[in-house]
């Protein structure tokens, strides 16, 4: 009885609310369209989060300069999630219930996307996520879209390029070492690599993980070296990526292909710190300044970004994440324009079937919300001779080897020679 009564009440309230909304509609037209999200501005992912925010604010400014959306200005409303997943549910309810945002997008990273999902699903909201790995595998939510170009099967698509490159060599490699940090992304990256290794019949001679705070990687690299693998696949985070590269170059790691899923090697500060030590490494990337990837608008965007980023202690180049942080808002904006509405059902519908043109190229989503086709690039660091920032801003230092459409150079193989 209680619940029946309550439902009655609810229905009444909803009707009243709807009436109020209709009445308020004309007055609201002048108000900006609010887009809410959480972002890691402190804590472990703050470096990335802050650079993403700069990119998003550039989009906000440009969009408003061009007249906004649906004749209204847009306004970003965001809170710091401190890289702490526990803050995320609170932030999104605040955005939705107190700030009454019209649209929502995610913060940066799987750990900070997942906690928002139950709320999105409860309210049937269209949710575009920024760099989540396989979040929707568990939720199966049809209004979830994700901008990281991992591909429809994120776990395996992630390292597909690495393995296709390896297996195209002559003679084919026979053994592989897998190593990764004990943390979300790295574990998943190595998991995908393990599947590929099995499928290709590569013998896994080392399969280890390490604590993310490991200070010295020498023992790990040595243990790997002792097993003489043809290929070494690494899934790592920024500090340990640096540690791995340093240990590998110091000890002269003897293998034919080295790299794979090392986060951080894309960041300007880390590239300039490592400099020539990067040569020969084959690693994933999302955007590099190669002629094949010169999409419309990306240059202009990066110029703005690089001006904005100065002196803020964030990535000064902005290739890796900021381009995509700009793109996911572009998609949202384009969908709003095309459907001429803020209705989440219509937006999701549009996103499911449309191919969008963005600063990161053409984006088309698969039914599970991931990119319909992987565009995880495999790039090789080549010909780096110094530690200058400009070196990494030119074409040719990170040549694209995969996927085919974007290839801009040749693989130098094996790693021992390419170094």
């Amino acid at each position: 009885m209680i619940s029946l009564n309550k439902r009655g009440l609810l229905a009444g309230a909803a009707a009243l609310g709807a009436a109020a909304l209709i009445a308020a509609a004309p007055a609201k037209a002048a108000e900006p369209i609010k887009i809410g999200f959480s972002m890691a501005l402190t804590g472990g992912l703050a470096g990335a989060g802050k650079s993403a925010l700069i990119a998003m604010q550039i989009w906000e400014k440009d969009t408003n300069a061009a007249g906004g959306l649906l004749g209204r200005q847009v306004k970003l409303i965001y809170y710091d999630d401190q890289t702490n997943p526990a803050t995320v549910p609170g932030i999104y309810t605040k955005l939705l219930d107190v700030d009454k945002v019209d649209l929502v997008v995610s913060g940066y990273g799987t750990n900070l996307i997942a906690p928002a999902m139950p709320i999105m699903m409860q309210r049937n909201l269209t949710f575009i996520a920024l760099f989540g790995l396989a979040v929707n595998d568990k939720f199966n939510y049809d209004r979830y879209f994700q901008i990281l170009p991992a591909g429809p099967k994120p776990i395996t698509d992630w390292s597909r390029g690495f393995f296709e490159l390896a297996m195209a060599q002559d003679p084919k490699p026979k053994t592989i070492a897998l190593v990764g940090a004990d943390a979300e992304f790295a574990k998943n990256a190595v998991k995908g690599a393990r599947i590929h290794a099995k499928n290709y019949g590569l013998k896994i001679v080392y399969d280890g993980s390490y604590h993310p705070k490991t200070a010295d990687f020498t023992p790990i690299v040595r243990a790997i070296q002792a097993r003489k693998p043809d290929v070494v696949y690494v899934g790592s985070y920024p500090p340990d990526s640096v540690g791995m590269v340093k240990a590998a170059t110091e000890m002269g790691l003897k293998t034919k292909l080295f790299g794979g899923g090392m986060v951080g090697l894309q960041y300007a500060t880390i590239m300039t710190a490592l400099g020539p030590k990067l040569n020969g490494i084959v690693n994933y990337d999302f955007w590099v300044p190669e002629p094949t990837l010169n999409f419309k608008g990306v240059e202009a965007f990066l110029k703005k970004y690089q001006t904005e980023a100065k002196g803020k202690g964030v990535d000064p180049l902005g290739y890796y994440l900021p381009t995509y942080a700009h793109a996911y808002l572009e998609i949202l904006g384009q969908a709003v324009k095309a459907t001429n509405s803020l209705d989440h059902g219509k937006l999701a519908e549009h996103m499911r079937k449309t191919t969008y043109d963005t600063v990161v190229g053409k984006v088309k989503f698969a039914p599970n919300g991931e990119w319909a086709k992987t565009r995880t690039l495999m790039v090789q660091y080549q010909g780096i001779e110094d530690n200058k920032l400009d070196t990494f801003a030119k074409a040719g230092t990170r040549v694209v080897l995969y996927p085919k459409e974007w290839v801009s150079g040749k693989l130098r193989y094996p790693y021992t020679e390419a170094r």
Partner: protein
Amino acid sequence: MFTFDLFWNALVAGALLGGFYAAVSLGLSITFGQLDIVNIAHPAFVILGAYIAYMGNEWWGFDPILTGLVAAPVFYAIGVGVYRFYYEAFERRDDEALRGLAFFFGVMFIVEVVLIMAYGVDFRSVQAPYIGGNWEIGTIGIPTRMFVPCMVSIAMFAAVYTYLARTFTGRAILAVSQDRLALELMAADPVRVKQVGFGLGIGTAAIAGALLIIIIPIEPSVGRLYIGQVFAIVVLGGLGSISGTLVAALILGVAESLVSTFYGPSWAPAVAFSVLLIALAVRPQGLFGR
């Protein structure tokens, strides 16, 4: 898979790592071990030292270790200041145990946040000629990036050890918490003595920070990761034993390295802490405890 080659290499790598751990722990060994001040903010000061080494390197191209040496007197002064405050606020009121702990907890947070506000959270690293080299002695490889910090650390230990053993103030520092009577006989003012000792402890953080940034890239919250480690080493070594701290650091480094090589790197930190837990349970006074 076991080979002697791997074993010796693991041993050497562990010893080098241990040498570095020792540098980070030395300051705490003085402040906590000798003076009974539970300075859990010590790793935060180490990170501060690392950032100063970074600044010197980035702006003027100074050698990080040199910067560390130059910064050490400044850190000494900071240490003296912190101790004065600590003394006035807690020790004098005989109220240091719990609240002193909370105080340093707060200090740790403040240092970290100030660093974030100043530098952001991007990873920073330094350039130096000895970063990236490697010596091969037979089949054993010695990365200079690890070797140089280890040697600097040992030199620092030797210097501190000599200072404590040979000078009047040094001996007073050794006596201040363990042997009040001796201190009185020496006619030394305990507050002044502790002030010097604490300054010395924080001073070592400047150099330890420089060593840290040579080994790995840093960001402001990296310091927290070392709280457990350094306390483990100081307790394992036995409070009040400087040489014990060095030995414990080496043991921990070697243990981590061996586990990392032969078992699985992901268990390395747990092994270190398990050793600590067992040591605490069986022999709380540490290996070389008083």
